[in-house]
């Protein structure tokens, strides 16, 4: 059976048996090779589920929306499973809230160009790390050599070039917050951008305010980012947001030891909410 068939069959069984209340996967969109997330509660809808190499969206964040109805089943690839781990570690959900149907991910493609998605070419864990059962086998995929290559490219620029580079990024940002809303690390009940009393970030759309948002977003998620690359994919202005996330990750890697978030369920504090007496000292 293909992974898609197994997913459909298992979604049907799980919903019918009452083990789960909702199942999250993908369905076909209107256009060729288009898929879109699908949430079903009725076993009869299981036939709508699809799994193919154009399933670009991650699914984990929907769990929080539908959890009130009961246990949630969902399809997880490497990135989805890391997002689930992230949500569990951030105490947004519990492991027993979800039933995870793992699926090996060969890497997804852009439906228009048929090229692999950038986020998938950068992926280091394409197969699920946490799951209750697997729909089919793990998939083989090339693992990129240096996940910080694009950060190093930017670092190689002069300071003035970098100023202008990021200025142009912030000039393009329309502050739609899609990067925030898709992010499995962004789970605040109210985002700082909406806090008018503190007025962290003004509502004008200009480079300065957009930079405030951009920098703070990275500081807020940097120590949790699972590198799913969804922020970058969903950005309607195609801003290279992973260059910011990975900068923080690279530095944490260098300074505080090997860093990769969302690999294991654990109560360990994040890198920035702990310390070592032996941490590097740069401020004497």
């Amino acid at each position, binding site marked *: 059976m293909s992974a898609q068939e197994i997913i459909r069959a298992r979604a049907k069984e799980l919903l019918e048996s009452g083990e789960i209340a909702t199942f999250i996967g993908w369905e076909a969109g209107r256009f060729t090779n288009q898929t879109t997330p699908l949430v079903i509660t009725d076993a009869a809808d299981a036939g709508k589920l699809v799994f193919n190499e154009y399933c670009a969206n991650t699914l984990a964040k929907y769990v929080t929306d539908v959890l009130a109805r009961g246990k949630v089943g969902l399809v997880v690839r490497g990135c989805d499973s890391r997002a689930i781990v992230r949500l569990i570690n951030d105490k947004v959900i519990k492991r027993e809230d979800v039933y995870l149907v793992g699926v090996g991910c060969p890497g997804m493609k852009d439906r228009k160009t048929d090229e692999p998605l950038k986020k998938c070419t950068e992926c280091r864990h394409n197969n699920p790390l946490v799951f209750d059962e697997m729909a089919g086998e793990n998939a083989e995929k090339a693992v990129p050599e240096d996940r910080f290559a694009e950060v190093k490219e930017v670092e190689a620029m002069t300071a003035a070039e970098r100023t202008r580079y990021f200025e142009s990024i912030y000039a393009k940002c329309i502050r739609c917050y899609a990067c925030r809303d898709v992010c499995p690390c962004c789970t605040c009940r*109210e985002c700082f951008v*909406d806090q008018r009393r503190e007025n962290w970030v003004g509502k*004008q759309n200009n480079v300065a305010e957009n930079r405030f948002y951009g920098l703070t977003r990275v500081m807020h998620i940097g120590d949790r980012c699972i590198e799913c690359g969804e922020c970058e994919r969903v950005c309607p202005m195609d801003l290279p947001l992973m260059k910011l996330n990975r900068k923080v990750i690279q530095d944490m890697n260098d300074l505080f030891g090997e860093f990769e978030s969302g690999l294991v369920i654990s109560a360990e504090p994040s890198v920035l909410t702990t310390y070592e007496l032996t941490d590097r000292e740069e401020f004497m």
Partner: protein
Amino acid sequence: MLLSKQNLMPLLNSLASDVDVFVPTTIDGVKKFARLADGVEPDFDMINTTMPPKDLLFPQTQKMYHFDVDKNGSYHIHEYDESREQIVFGIRPCDMRSIVCLDEVFLTKGFVDEFYANAREKLLTVSIGCTQAAETCFCTSMGVDPIYAPNADVMLQDTGDAYKVTAQTPKGEAAVSAWSEFLSDGDAEPVNCDVTLKVSMEGVVDKLEGMYDSPIWENLSIKCLNCGTCTYVCPTCHCFDISQENRKKDGVRFRCWDSCMFSEYTAMAGGHNPRPEKLERERNRFMHKLNFFERRYGMSLCVGCGRCVEKCPVALDITRLIDDIGSYEVAPASAE
């Protein structure tokens, strides 16, 4: 009258020497309208821009006035210079229709928005009809003719080697008469544009009246992320917020786009939010597009440009919603 394609750039350059001319182009990777200047390459073959042209009349951030405090502690308010004459050249018929919607909002029913009115009055619209449609274009379903924009000051229609030029308003006539050196007499048949994506709006507006509590909204909204992409790329979305910012001795009062997709949009000072979840917010957005606006202004607030369909991160597709509404069976209203 015809404008040969060879004469197009000379015309534009000549116009740009006097007034600001905005053309569709790609700047720094973003398809949008930009002021014609050195280095800006107009792209009239582009099906449409990613960012709608509404920024010309209703900028994302509009400074309304600024103020400062003098040594005695008194505040002084200063207005900004009035805007200049502008031409938008190459606007598509769907976007021209969006200007009709915006005109209704900002200029009619006794409410005239000064900032909008001022910019609108100084804007000459030159529309270019489409020759090809994107897969997401569905303007014809929303009553827009892809090769003809009735409200444009000047309509340009592609006839192959030349554009057929039609002045449609007094402003347009004045403009076209000034372009005479670039125009030639003649007539030609405009190239047609085939829009493949079609939805039926038949009965949708009325049906929605009875669908406030329909499960359709839940099924729709569940996949929404509640980002503001659809509202910001939409040529007709026009919600704004007014705020101010102080810097050094000065302060600015400004208004900026807001999005009904954000929870903060309806959050009240006391903490209550009448649209607490995405279901309510999604419902409001689509009801506004397809029903509320229709009721108030007699037209749909969706022009079928397809930008939201294209840009939505989760492929939440208004055309599928319209189909779903069409096939939805409204429960008979219970007797009062």
